[in-house]
């Protein structure tokens, strides 16, 4: 792209990247800590994007799936002594398998029914995490989860973890863009635009939906893996309906199909929950108002504030 907007975008991107890389140098540990959460959360949020923006499905189970990823790695490392890196693939696989097992049949349902099914999945997973004490320790949670390490170097402090989180978020973004730009992505978008028409051009509707579900679960599981090794303690309450709502909100605030928008929304909303802390009792009211007013006035996502998009996005753009 050699147009002036293209060049400007490149500069903005480069500047943003530089700022991100330098963050730990000039920001307090607390801010890096928040940044880590933002980066981790972009994974389940982008995961939801596969379902919402590209397959026209809303899921309220992402919190539970995130938790499955987190618990899998937590249990493998604390109960069976696996090293954290080794548990990455199992955590993601476990999440995908569970999601497809529980939701695979439901994903063929009409949009609203699918939401309902995901609520059921969310609650069931939470209840099991809470009550299957022999497996998950129930309400006591799993503590002393080891930090991720490379050789002898462990990522203990927020600053050290930050770079892993940044890399992970970056890979997740690039990977997501590749998927969207691929043939599969085309099918998924066709699906959400008009299922009837899509099936008429032989898009394998059913399978595409399940794949979208699997993708969203994979991203959620990966995010959960990071979370567990950062917070180093997991508890069922971290993966309840509230968490699912939060990820969904971030995803929708970001806008239908804008991955960048989702990332920005994640950043804004997560920082907001921290900024709002001084409000004390009114913090949650403010949070609710943000959701409500946001949906009332920016249903297409917050980036509509910033960009006036062309009415027909070019293929591959996100």
């Amino acid at each position, binding site marked *: 792209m050699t147009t002036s907007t293209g060049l400007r975008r490149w500069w903005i991107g480069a500047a943003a990247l530089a700022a991100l890389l330098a963050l730990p140098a000039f920001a307090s540990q607390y801010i890096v800590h928040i940044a880590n959460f933002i980066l981790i959360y972009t994974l389940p949020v982008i995961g939801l994007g596969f379902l*919402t923006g590209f397959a026209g499905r*809303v899921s309220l189970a992402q919190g539970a799936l995130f938790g499955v990823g987190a618990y899998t790695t937590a249990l493998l490392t604390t109960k069976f002594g696996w090293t954290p890196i080794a548990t990455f693939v199992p955590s993601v696989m476990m999440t995908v398998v569970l999601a497809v097992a*529980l939701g695979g*049949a*439901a994903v063929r*349902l*009409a*949009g*609203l*029914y699918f*939401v*309902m*099914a995901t*609520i*059921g*999945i969310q*609650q*069931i997973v939470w*209840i*099991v995490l809470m*009550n299957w004490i022999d497996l998950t320790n129930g309400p006591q949670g799993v503590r002393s989860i080891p930090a991720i390490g490379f050789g002898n170097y462990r990522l203990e402090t927020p600053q050290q973890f930050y770079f892993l989180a940044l890399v992970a978020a970056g890979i997740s973004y690039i990977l997501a863009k590749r998927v969207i730009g691929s043939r599969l992505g085309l099918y998924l978008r066709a699906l959400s635009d008009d*299922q*009837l028409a899509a099936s008429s051009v032989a898009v394998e509707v059913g399978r595409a939906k399940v794949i979208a579900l699997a993708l969203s679960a994979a991203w959620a599981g990966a995010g959960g893996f990071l979370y567990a090794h950062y917070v180093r303690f997991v508890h069922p309450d971290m993966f309840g*309906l509230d968490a699912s*709502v939060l990820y*969904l*909100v971030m995803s*929708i605030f970001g806008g239908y199909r804008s991955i960048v928008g989702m990332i920005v929304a994640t950043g804004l909303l997560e920082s907001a929950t921290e900024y709002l802390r001084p409000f004390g*009792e*009114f913090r*949650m*009211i403010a*949070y*609710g*108002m*943000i*959701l*409500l*007013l*946001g*949906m*009332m*006035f920016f*249903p*297409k996502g917050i980036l509509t504030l910033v960009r006036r998009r062309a009415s027909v996005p070019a293929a591959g753009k996100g």
Partner: protein
Amino acid sequence: MFDQLFIGGLATGCIYAVVGLGFTLVYRTLRMVNFAQGQVFMIGAFLGLVTAERAHLPALPLLFVVSAIAFALGMVLERLVFRRLYHSHEVFIVGTIGLGIVLTNVVRVFFPGPVPFPKIFGSHVVQIGTARFQETYVWVVISTLVLVVLLHAMFTYTRAGRALRAVAADAEIAGTVGVNVNRTIALTFGLSFAVAAIAGVLIGPLYFVSFDMGDMVGLKAFSAAVFGGINSIPGTILGGLAIGVLENLAGGYISSAYKDLVAFAILLVMLIWRPTGLLGRDMPVKV
């Protein structure tokens, strides 16, 4: 033990049924799910609390006053809030979730802890077989029955009721035959708020009222509506009663720890097996 569990389940089931009705009414007309329904139920309970304490009204006038206020609230919120959320399912869902959070926490500012509710239905203890319970349970069941009959009468015999059914069937055509669609939609919300609020007042005397009492009830009433058929009123009632009784029986006979699981397992299984619910009809839904 069975008697106790069954009757207890019947009462909570009535509550799920009535709150579930709120979901169903809105869904039939708009194909949208109002995720703040549970919080409306909670508001109804608090409205009842405040009114009962200030005005010392007995049960029947209290129900009337609370439902009237809730009805008005529903219509006002439709105008101000809900109308702007019709953009898409996701937007409506997230928006109403936000509304629910606002309602919960506003109430929390005024009532940070649980509060006992006056015993407007008396405090006799009734005994049937081995089951002992407060007379309030009886009133809950009776009130639900009366409510359902009234609603049925309204839908079948009154003009407004028929307008509601027309808009639910096909809004466009209803509009062309002279039904004021916007006003009907507003009425729908008013009605769904009113029934949820009534449920709140009915259940008040049984437990404490607290700002979080709507969360679980909302989810289970939702499951009830889906189970029975979210576009069917008798289905929702049936669904509510079924879930209320089944979860109690499971909690008593199988495991109290997994009692909540029952409602959600039923939800999931029902959706996969028969999404339109027990009594629901397949409505042409835009995919």
